[in-house]
């Protein structure tokens, strides 16, 4: 029996095989379907791997490869995928821990994970400092005297580094991990509330999102401004992911299976594609009604614009519909690299940020040609794959030779838990 069907109830198969989706007997709270351990949900790994690759490519200067990233075809981008799947898998892993071992133990494990992410962030910051210090001392093109003002923070490292440790000072492209840290810190509360009433929790999350928009709440940053990803808004995707993991997706399966949903989703995705097209083909822009433009723009990434969120929902609905979880392609060797990367998301994410720094550096120091650019993008992806493979291999070996006590429950990475 594949008890994993419960976890992955987002599939259409969930309706087709209701017999298998019986409630987990140990479930203490009837409101929550206990996530079960079983076969991995490869679609999650696949799309998280994809998100990691896309984030890497998007962090490099634009090139031919950039045209393959989804942000050019609609409102949402890889960040949405990453945060949603992170919410899903985090709830999957730690939700189970909470039901089995209780609130305190689960919280302790979540905090341990938060610590890992925090250390990873500080590590990346150190690399960034090294890069920026180098550029500051070696680059004196008079064309860019003004832009070099960004180096001013190097003049007071005492303040800057402390602010960085407080997550208030964050260089460009290093905004995702702090967001993730805050969301994970809130996870015990989210899970505890989900255990009580999942729907109410989701509703509260929507309320927080609405309040954030209404009253313009934000996390302040150093030296000024605010967090590039507002956790108060982005929590909606995270909580929604958690809600889906804890049975919500299964309950939604009828809606997802309906052709009406499908056509709405298709229409929305096509419309979003058209709007995006007008950004790149300015000749088309006069076909856009001015009214609509004024209502629509700017599409705000910081506060997770509703247009972005709905675009993600539409994409997700289509994917769930057209890519069944037992699709044989998921086991094919071609998708293996993506899935491997998705299974070790924290490590590969950090690696991707580092590789993007390194790529910039090479482009700047060695040569900036298109061929070099393509080479950097491709080798970056190959390195990510290689490292993911090594981590998998090591885990397999360690699991085999190591403690037999290690069961699936203790393994935060089972579902790529973070």
């Amino acid at each position, binding site marked *: 029996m594949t008890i994993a069907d419960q976890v992955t109830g987002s599939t259409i198969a969930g309706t087709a095989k209701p017999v298998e989706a019986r409630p987990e007997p140990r479930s203490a709270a009837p409101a929550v379907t206990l996530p079960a351990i079983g076969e991995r949900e490869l679609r999650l790994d696949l799309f998280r791997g994809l998100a990691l690759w896309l984030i890497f490519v998007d962090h490099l200067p634009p090139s031919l490869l950039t045209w393959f990233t989804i942000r050019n075809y609609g409102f949402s981008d890889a960040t949405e995928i990453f945060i949603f799947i992170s919410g899903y898998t985090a709830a999957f892993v730690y939700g189970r821990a909470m039901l089995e071992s209780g609130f305190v133990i689960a919280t302790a494990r979540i905090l341990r994970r938060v610590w890992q992410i925090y250390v990873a962030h500080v590590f990346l910051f150190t690399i960034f400092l090294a890069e920026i210090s180098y550029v500051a001392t070696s680059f004196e*093109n*008079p064309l*860019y005297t003004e*832009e070099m003002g*960004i180096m001013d923070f190097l003049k007071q490292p005492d303040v800057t580094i402390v602010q960085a440790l407080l997550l208030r000072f964050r260089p*460009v492209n290093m905004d995702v991990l702090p967001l993730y840290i805050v969301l994970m810190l809130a996870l015990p509360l989210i899970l505890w509330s989900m255990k009580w009433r999942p729907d109410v929790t989701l509703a509260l999350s929507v309320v927080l999102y609405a309040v954030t928009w209404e009253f313009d709440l934000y996390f302040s940053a150093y030296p*000024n401004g605010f967090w590039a990803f507002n956790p108060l808004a982005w929590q909606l995707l995270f909580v929604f992911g958690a809600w889906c993991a804890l049975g919500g997706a299964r309950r939604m399966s009828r809606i997802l299976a309906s052709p009406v949903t499908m056509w709405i989703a298709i229409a929305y995705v096509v419309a979003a594609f058209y709007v995006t097209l007008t950004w790149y083909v300015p000749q088309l822009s006069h076909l856009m009604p001015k009214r609509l433009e004024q209502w629509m723009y700017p599409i705000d990434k910081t506060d997770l614009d509703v247009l972005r969120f709905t675009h993600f929902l539409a994409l997700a609905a289509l994917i769930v519909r057209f890519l069944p979880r037992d699709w044989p392609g998921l086991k094919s060797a071609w998708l293996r690299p993506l899935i491997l990367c998705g299974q070790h998301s924290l490590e590969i994410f950090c690696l991707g940020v580092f590789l993007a720094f390194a790529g910039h550096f090479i482009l*700047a120091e060695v040569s900036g040609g298109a061929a070099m650019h393509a080479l950097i993008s491709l080798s970056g992806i190959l390195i990510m794959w290689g490292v993911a493979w090594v981590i998998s291999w090591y885990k397999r070996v360690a699991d085999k030779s190591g403690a037999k006590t290690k069961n699936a429950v203790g393994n935060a990475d089972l579902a790529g838990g973070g």
Partner: protein
Amino acid sequence: MKAKVLLSLVLLCGNLAAPLARAGDAAPTAPAAPPACELPSYLLTTESQLPKVADAIKAGKPLEILVIGSRSTTIPASEDSSYPARMQAILRDRLLPSEAVHVSVEIQSKKTAEEAAATFVKLMEAKKPTLVIWQTGTVDAIRAIDPDDFRGAVTEGVSALQNAGADVVLMNLQYSPRTETMISVPPYLDNMRVVAQEHDVPLFDRFAIMRQWNDQGQFDLFSPSRGPELAKQVHDCLGRALAQFVIDAAHLGPAGQQN
């Protein structure tokens, strides 16, 4: 539309003939754009117009242009080679009578859009320009000013300039590949585009233009060179592009042009 095609053809021919003239680049009235400045026409097209500039030229009145910008509007120690000076040279060359074009520059270094906008009323009283070219966004991006606040400030600034009776052109940030990992530029570009759209103001997309040059290999903007040559060449091309942009937006077209 036809006029535009014709114009681009004329320009293209000018460009083909340009290598001969290239040696005399430093001269204040270089006749045609050097090939390095070539741009696809969509980067220099705008739907918004500059009616006051058009009126001034038609009425034969002097054209007073004020460039308000931050430090990227100048080249340290080479003011005469910066894009406002180059634009003045090109405009004088193209528009008759030549002495009727005057460009003045107001540098507000290290000022955000909000801080700059606060000075506009007084500035406009003093200078009374027909056209204001406002280059902004860089300081805000460096200081990571809230993009919403930035948009508000640009909106206020544009309104103040328009209320003072001038046409306005907005100019966005430089493309600076070396600092791309350090400065988050996109929100500021987006918000300037929004304000330009809302106020029907032409936006001179300096960012896209410079990126085009870098991508096509006309300029290596990654270059760490300390000498002013690259900056001078880029500003020369920017000045030409800006002059062309103003001529197009004011529909001065081939009629008012001396090519």
